[in-house]
């Protein structure tokens, strides 16, 4: 039987661009270039490796996001994923993590799955909670923050490097996995891959397709409210000295003046 892998990928504003907020205090996704979150490339990579090791597997990439989010799907398809699903709906604007996990979970169920693979965190929101929320919603094991992952005989195994210890984890499929940027370099799309991606199917679903009411998502459905966003004042310019042989001593003098020594 075929192994159905769904990879959740997010389209995010470029971190090296000038990220900011829109007037309604949501992340501005119009004025900054977007891309497939780099941390989700690791998820695509692990999905492709697991699929290559399985006899028969299919990798579907799934995103919830605006029109431009198709770029993220194309990138993942050009890396080697088989097909893509784009959940897009005007009513999704302003959806928070709880709402996003609802939409993703409904889409994953509709698509059919044995294994869900997510990134460790999105590079814009950096919450790192969606995979855990997906496991809770789908009612399947959560095997998250893996720096090493393998799937064999319906069992997923992996290593999770935590604060206090490194743990070996094991769970039966179906399951939700997330992988870290320690899991292995993501491949670059080949020219052949980029050409092939153009012919791969991208399905579009809206909230109605997923039987979700508009009030459950978007700014209105959000469980959290942002009341203010202020740009952090630029740090006041510090003192910069060139080392002429006394740089270490000058630095020590500064640290002493600040009472660190």
């Amino acid at each position: 039987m075929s192994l159905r892998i769904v990879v959740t990928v997010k389209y995010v504003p470029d971190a090296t661009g000038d990220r900011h907020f829109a007037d309604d205090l949501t992340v501005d996704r119009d004025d900054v270039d977007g891309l497939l979150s780099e941390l989700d490339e690791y998820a695509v990579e692990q999905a492709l490796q697991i699929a290559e090791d399985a006899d028969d597997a299919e990798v579907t990439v799934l995103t919830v996001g605006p029109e431009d989010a198709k770029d993220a799907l194309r990138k993942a398809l050009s890396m080697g994923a088989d097909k893509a699903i784009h959940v897009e709906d005007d009513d999704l604007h302003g959806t928070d993590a709880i709402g996003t996990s609802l939409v993703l979970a409904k889409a994953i169920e509709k698509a059919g799955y044995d294994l869900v693979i997510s990134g460790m965190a999105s590079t814009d929101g950096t919450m790192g909670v969606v995979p855990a929320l997906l496991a809770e919603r789908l009612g399947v094991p959560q095997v998250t923050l893996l720096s090493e992952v393998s799937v064999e005989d319906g069992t997923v195994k992996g290593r999770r490097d935590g604060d206090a210890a490194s743990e070996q984890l094991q769970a039966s499929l179906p399951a939700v996995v997330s992988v870290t940027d320690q899991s292995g370099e993501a491949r670059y799309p080949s020219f052949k891959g980029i050409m092939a991606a153009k012919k791969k199917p991208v399905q579009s679903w809206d909230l109605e397709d997923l039987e979700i009411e508009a009030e459950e998502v978007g700014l209105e459905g959000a469980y959290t409210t942002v009341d203010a966003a202020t740009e952090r004042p630029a740090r006041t310019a510090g003192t910069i000295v060139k080392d002429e042989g006394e740089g270490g001593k000058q630095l020590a003098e500064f640290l002493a003046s600040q009472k660190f020594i």
Partner: protein
Amino acid sequence: MAEVLVYVDHVDGAVRKPTLELLTLARRIGEPVAVALGGGAGDTAATLAEHGAVKVLTHEAAEYADYLVVPKVDALQAAVEAVSPAAVLVPSSAEGKEIAARLALRIGSGIITDAVDLEAGDEGPVATQSVFAASFTTKSRVSKGTPVITVKPNSAAVEAAPAAGSVEALAVTFSDQATGTKVTARTPRESTGRPELTEAAIVVSGGRGVNGAENFAIIEALADSLGAAVGASRAAVDAGWYPHTNQVGQTGKSVSPQLYIASGISGAIQHRAGMQTSKTIVAVNKDPEAPIFELVDYGVVGDLFEVVPQLTEEIKARKG
């Protein structure tokens, strides 16, 4: 006064510092009730009482160590149902955020992660967050359900505030999901004897400029002269020069010490994301154009192999 649940992060009964900071924040909103789980849970009570916990709910069971995350969610949910708190505060570790998120979903609440400050507000607790690699500060609150908020280390001072801290056993029934993900082996991290990276008052970091694992001895010597923790950039970690547990930045640890010293680190946005909120920032870099200099209170343009050892010697001399 309303009760505020505080999830206790502890290792065999030794309470970690971020939990004590949460007790300080919890007292701004209500009366702290601590929840301590797993081996040694009961041993946490004295420390928690000293820092303001009016009550300590404990539950010991093998499940907390043998299975991932879900048993702790089950317990915290039981505590929420028993106490009906005004808010639930959880330390912002990777695991803490996962526990908090699943709890929020179960109790029909919103979640805020990585708060760096917390105050009482007319419509519930107001959390301050630092976003987009710390280039923006936001104020937000949970608008539905019991607020569940995770708080970063070093967000508040640890304060003594003696309270009763009476220990009560928490009744927990594990859910069907609790045993879904088995922990088949655990290798505790070896202690270096240096302070915990996220909790340290001073962090001394090295990057690609350190140019080799053996050269990290220079960074460690400086750290030890200041009683500091050692950090590393991802470039240094990827090169295999220093362990990943010491990585500072977006995909490593986020630190907010009194003093951050970066040597041979350029200051890429992903690195800044993990250290930009440090109170005082110092850098040594041979490239005057390195972006890290935009952040510094004091910077030395020079070769770290000259500057850092001289600094270490001078600190030792001054400390006598």
